[in-house]
């Protein structure tokens, strides 16, 4: 009898262990195995190397936990979608073979994102502005996930979150406020509160390449960027908030390093937790050699010479309670999105322009429309793809007040599957009306322990002052 009981206990433990930690037993979950098999089949050393990291025990453990928490994974969702069967892993779509795949490819960019196809074809809005041709390398869908900290904080705190007056988020402490979002506004709040996908961030440097009407790079501007969350912290102590700073959501600082006439410009931007309190924006202006307050309410001007405004920062950084809008869920779909690109994006002078080549995969997304109610607001509306696994924004269209497609934005996420850290890679923003483009080249580090308050206060400005 004892032996029988012992046998049952051991068997139960083994089954549980295998289900929770399949990699430990050498059995990969199907979402990992399919990627690994495909990588092996290509013989591509980059893919094989990536698959090893993606299928490591740490990755599998974390991925499994997120799958359990959300109750779904992208691989299974995508598998059920039979749209555009010719667009499959291994295919490389270029301007040379695009006509063969155009029809199916357009099906994978619903709700106005067909400009990605036009980019390759040189048609539509890119008919007279085809300086950024694209080569799409299709890879299998990943099951993706975020940092464990977000999951644990979401489990702990999300139950208290709700939408308050002026669409503001109420009761939030940390993590995803709405891990099972029911409407577009909740999805937007989720992305907003993921902030920089970590507790702090350095990008040294963040380089803006600015491209003119002829597609040639006409300027480069470089800044050093630091960002820090004061509440909602999930990984770097103190958590979940920095003592004495609960009124602050986040702070960011930049110091310009190039070119000479920008060099030394330093700014600290503070976003407050109070839904009605505007940002603070204090700067050091080297030409005046003074610390000067600029208008924190001015969020709609472009940053330096780029096409990006503070409203567009990280795709969406509008203070929801300040700028009233109507949030509409246009639908859910499986679409083609930039995949995880473990290696830097390839740029080549090709097809008469500055060609980019990166990895793409099918992703399950929510399609959200934000129609601003202010006639004086810079945009009439925005439409964005929000990833159903990472809750991160994948692509975005900006429309002006006349309803014209104004700016389009895609970027790749760089991702460490072993700890779930996501960061921005290659944000690419094109202004289709003014025919100008910005490619932001980040060099990001996340969740450092030495990024202190001294990067985000008057002392920081004083230290940069000459």
């Amino acid at each position, binding site marked *: 009898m004892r032996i029988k009981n012992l046998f049952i206990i051991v068997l139960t433990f083994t089954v549980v262990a295998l289900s929770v930690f399949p990699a430990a037993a050498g059995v990969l979950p199907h979402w990992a195995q399919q990627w690994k098999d495909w990588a092996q089949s290509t013989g591509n050393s980059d893919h094989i190397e990536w698959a090893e990291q993606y299928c490591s025990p740490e990755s599998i453990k974390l991925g499994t936990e997120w799958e359990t928490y959300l109750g779904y994974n992208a691989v299974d969702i995508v598998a059920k979608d039979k749209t555009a069967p010719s667009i499959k892993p291994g295919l490389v779509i270029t301007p040379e073979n695009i006509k063969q795949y155009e029809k199916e490819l357009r099906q994978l960019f619903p709700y106005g994102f067909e400009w990605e196809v036009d980019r390759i074809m040189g048609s539509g809005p890119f008919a007279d502005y085809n300086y950024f041709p694209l080569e799409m390398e299709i890879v299998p869908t990943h099951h993706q996930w975020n940092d464990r900290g977000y999951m644990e904080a979401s489990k702990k705190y999300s139950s208290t979150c709700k939408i308050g007056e002026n669409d503001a988020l109420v009761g939030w402490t940390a993590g995803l406020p709405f891990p099972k979002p029911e409407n577009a506004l909740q999805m937007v709040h989720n992305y907003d509160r993921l902030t920089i996908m970590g507790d702090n961030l350095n990008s040294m440097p963040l380089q803006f390449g600015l491209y003119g009407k002829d597609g040639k790079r006409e300027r480069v501007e470089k800044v050093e960027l630091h960002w820090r969350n004061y509440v909602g912290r999930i990984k770097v102590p103190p958590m979940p908030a920095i003592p004495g700073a609960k009124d602050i959501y986040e702070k960011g600082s930049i110091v310009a390093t190039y070119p000479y006439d920008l*060099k030394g410009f330093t700014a600290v931007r503070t976003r407050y937790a109070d839904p009605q309190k505007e940002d*603070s924006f204090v700067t050091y202006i080297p030409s005046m050699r*003074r610390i000067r*307050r600029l208008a924190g*309410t001015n969020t709609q001007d*472009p940053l330096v010479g780029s096409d990006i405004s503070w409203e567009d920062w990280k795709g969406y950084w509008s203070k929801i309670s300040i700028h009233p809008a109507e949030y509409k869920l246009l639908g859910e779909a499986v679409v083609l999105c930039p995949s995880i690109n473990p290696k830097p994006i390839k740029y080549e002078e090709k097809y008469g322009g500055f060609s980019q080549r990166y990895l793409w995969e099918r992703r399950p997304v929510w399609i959200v429309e934000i129609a601003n109610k202010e006639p004086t607001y810079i945009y009439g509306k925005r439409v964005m793809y929000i990833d159903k696994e990472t809750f991160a924004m994948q692509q975005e269209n900006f429309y002006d007040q006349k309803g014209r497609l104004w700016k389009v934005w895609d970027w790749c996420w760089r991702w460490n599957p072993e700890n779930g850290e996501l960061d921005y890679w290659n944000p690419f923003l094109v202004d289709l009306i003014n025919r100008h483009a910005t490619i932001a080249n980040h060099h990001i580090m996340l969740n450092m322990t030495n990024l202190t308050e001294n990067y985000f206060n008057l002392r920081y400005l004083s230290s940069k002052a000459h």
Partner: protein
Amino acid sequence: MKAFKFVLKSCTLMAAVFLAIQSPVLATEFDIAGRPFFINGFITQEGALGVDNSHLSGRNLSAYSTLQLEWEYKFNDKISLYGINRLFGDQAYNIHHNRSWFKKANHQKAQESNARRNMEWEWNINDRGWEVFREIYFDIYTENFQFRIGKQQVIWGESDGLRLMDCINPQDMRYEFNLRDSDEGYEYTRIPLWLIKTTYFPKIKPFGIKDLQFEFIINPGKTRINRLELYGSEGGVWATEMPNLPRGVRVDVTDKNHATGIDKAEFATRIMGDYDGWLFTLNGYYGYQQENTAILLPTGPTIAAPWDEAFLTLNFDKKFYHKKLVGFTLNKELTAIRMRKTTSPVLRVEALYEFDKPFCYEGEHIGDMAWTGLNGKYSEARKFKDQMRMMVGFDWQIYLRFLNKRESFFTSAQFFVFYIRGKNGEYVNAPFYFTNKVKGELMPPLPPSRDGSRIDPWRIHKTQKYFSFLMNTYYDNKRIMPQVLYLCDLNEHAHGLKAKICFNYGSHWRPEIGTMMWWGDHDTGKSFGLFQKNRQVYMKIKYQF
């Protein structure tokens, strides 16, 4: 020493040329002994043409050349050495020095002797201030302190266009007035000083004040005054106007500098912090007067030499009076006010109270001219009065989408009020204060007293009021920036206007075209009207690296 300076100048020039023709990467960062050495800079050439209906119309008024290197070497994370080497000059003094119109640009024959030597290049045989190193200082950081030791600029205050609290460094006013670089932070005209600046960051939040810091500044004894080279040295179109004295009278000032010594030390302190979005400073300064009109002391008249085309010389010594002031600045974004639901204005306030400021004393009646020291009725040539100066300004970025779809218009309006307790008009900008009308009507120059209605000298009003307005915006992804700056002296009905367009194409070339205009309502002898003859259009080409 001369040879050493020559070598330094030559090295700087060669380094700048070398860096300018190298790739931007080379010009930005080097590695020396395993530590980063950053270097940037620019070369600029400017040229201006007169457009006033005067003898200077169509003339090349100025041809500024600038070559600047800015560098920093980081010994480690705590200590760095920063410097600026600048070669600056007005090549008009080289090109036109033999031309009669240039020599007589101010109708003052006496003002040409040293002009070329002093103005052609800032570095010259009179390189008294080590202009070869415009700035050079060590920065030392510790947990709670930052020390800056060396030749440097310290800029206080919130005002643009007129300097109130920005009182630590004097100005080089030989070339132009206000409009030249008031919209660019006086970077060209501020004179760096050898200072020790200590900033203490106590890391406490008393009464909810965030980011509290204390600043202590000591000038250990090498004081400077505004550089104007009064009378007898500078020629050319930007030379100091000889005072509009009656015919036959001239002025002579001793060529004397403030002595260097520990007993001449100057002190300044500032507290800065942020209280609920109010960024404030409290300031105090104890040093010396820098304005030329505040330091002249009459020593009596002498008979002028016939070749000076005058019969009487008014002689002045320089007396370096103390300057003592306290003040504060504030700024805050007024978010309760919104422009069509977009942006809010930023309020800027600056105010100071100066104790015992010296003024040239006119006497009880206009025309008494006590400041000359020749009117026996008055024992004092100067009066010491407290003065209050205040500025209230608003910066507002407004959207005019029909003019600019993408970018806001940055607007900045400032109102200045200076107030002196005492009788209106008894203080004057002597000896600059006569108008052309006075000059034409008065002979001899020194009547004991005259009827105030007959003359209208440039008096310092009991309450002085000024207004400034600046507006700019950007087009074409910040590649084109038009800007307008307007200054108004409300008492003297004098106006200044600078309009320019900057072109920011590429990372290196920065051309700029613009115009600077001045008007004086009464005549050309007062306030901005002094410069009316210098109305101009200008062009600037800059290569930065």
